[in-house]
């Protein structure tokens, strides 16, 4: 479904992503992990058109996305969430989801202006779908709350709901669990699994290793922009290179004890 070939990004003299090859097949849930600053978010930016690769290609369902603008990438079925600013602050929860459904049931300028019956039909359909999505993620209670005053955990969930509203085939989640407490983490994990089971392929960046290991079928590990390991969670857990990257030599020793 998604093929990255030799993907490279340089900022000034720094190579943030270094000739990365990666494949994701339809229906997979793949984890992308690595220490802070390893270049994970840059990979997302390169895939979704926020940054242009210095080298390499991004192919999605046989289409070359390299260098395509972000909004066109969304059209072919890729959506993502963000670590920061992941909701439209001044819109209410349901408006956020409706805004996320921008590509769905487009309403023309004149339809907007005259609130024509066809526009109203489309609007109510989009609204109904937004309600469904809110129910799916469990935010229906806060439907009319301004997004800015949502508790942190709910904001993160809303960010996912906005991405879902764009009806992606492949969803890229950028640290969906960060800053959540244990209970919220469990709920969010359940939600991610539910989204995946509904047939959406997922690429997940996550710092919470327990969650990343539990959710992913396959994991790719980045360090300094390079892929240092790839495999099932069990393989990754046992990989010396990975343990060293995360825990350092001493930590590894402690672990062996």
């Amino acid at each position: 479904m998604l093929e990255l070939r030799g993907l490279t990004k340089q900022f000034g003299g720094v190579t943030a992503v270094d000739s990365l090859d990666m494949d994701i097949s339809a229906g997979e849930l793949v984890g992308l992990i690595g220490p802070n600053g390893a270049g994970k978010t840059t990979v997302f930016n390169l895939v979704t058109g926020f940054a242009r690769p210095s080298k390499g290609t991004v192919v999605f369902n046989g289409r070359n996305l390299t260098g395509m603008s972000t909004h066109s990438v969304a059209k072919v079925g890729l959506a993502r969430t963000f670590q920061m600013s992941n909701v439209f602050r001044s819109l209410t929860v349901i408006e956020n989801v409706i805004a996320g459904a921008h590509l769905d049931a487009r309403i023309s300028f004149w339809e907007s202006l005259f609130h024509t019956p066809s526009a109203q039909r489309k609007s109510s359909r989009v609204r109904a779908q937004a309600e469904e999505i809110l129910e799916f993620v469990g935010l229906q209670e806060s439907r009319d709350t301004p997004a800015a005053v949502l508790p942190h955990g709910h904001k993160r969930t809303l960010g996912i709901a906005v991405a879902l509203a764009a009806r992606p085939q492949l969803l890229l989640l950028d640290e969906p669990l960060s800053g959540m407490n244990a209970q919220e983490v469990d709920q969010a994990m359940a939600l991610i699994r539910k989204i995946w089971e509904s047939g959406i392929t997922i690429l997940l960046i996550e710092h919470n290793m327990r969650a990343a290991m539990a959710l992913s079928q396959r994991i790719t590990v980045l360090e300094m922009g390079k892929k240092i390991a790839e495999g099932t969670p069990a393989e990754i857990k046992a990989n010396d290179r990975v343990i060293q990257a995360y825990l350092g030599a001493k930590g590894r020793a402690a672990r062996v004890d």
Partner: protein
Amino acid sequence: MNSRLYKAIGWLTLLVILCLVPLFMKQNYVLHVLITIGVGVVLANSLRFVFLTGQLSLGHGAMVSLGAYFSSLTVMNLGLSFWLALPLAGVFAMIVSFFTGYLFTRLKGFYFAMVTMFLTMVVQLVAEQWRGLTGGVGGLTNIPPPNAIGALGFDSKADFYYLMLAIAVISLLIMYLLEFSRLGLTLTSVRDSEALAASVGVNTRFYKVLAFGLGGFFAGVVGSFYCHYYSAVSPSSFTFMLSIDVLVFMVVGGRHRFVGPILGAVVLTVIPELGRGMKEYEPFIYAAVLLLIIVFLPRGLISLPEQVRILLRRGTSPSERAASAITRGSHRA
């Protein structure tokens, strides 16, 4: 539902009262002030329409200017009817806005504000320079009033008043309908987070240009009205200070609410008029009001009741404080 009904009734009542004003207020002075308010309201609201996408434009003066020159030149030189020239002036300003907006929207925040300010100055300078067409510094004079239509002969202030009222009502209605439609939602989403909007498929540049262009349309229409009302137009009619004035209306009234700019235009047009007795120091009063509001009511006059409520209740919850801070934070370019 009910509150919506009350609101509609309230607005209709206001409209009826405004329609009746000339029957009771015969003084030209009052009508003139009301017309000035109308001009301010349309300009401030159309500036806010551009601002919905987070773009702070100081190019409004240019668009008013273009509308005014387009309208007076087509009417005077080509013999076009005013009633055709009025919307065409808007369309002309809109086309120029689309074009310049397309070039400018890659600039953000302060740079966008400044480049649009330069646009205003360039238009002014070109108007000064192109004597053959625009009459240079002296400008155009003896611009004919609108052709008579029905009971409106445009030989009295009242007729202009009704024209302005119609322009204001229609413009506000259009902007209101657009803001509270899917389109408005998309524009706001672009302001809140361009990255997030783009990631769900919004062509952010297109919508920024669209908002800039539509804002320009209303400014052009106002320009057309203006020159036929004063029967004159000159480069110094619309300097960048006009852009600033309009910005002041918007911010002082409240940039986050539809009624904000309306309120700002009304209050800030009336205050100097009240201070007319002390003409020398009138700008002082105006400046003092500006400073007071911007310092103590950063979200504009429209937030006064809310601020008072928060003050009275004293111990506000963090969520309330945050709620009142939402719109404050989101305007940052």
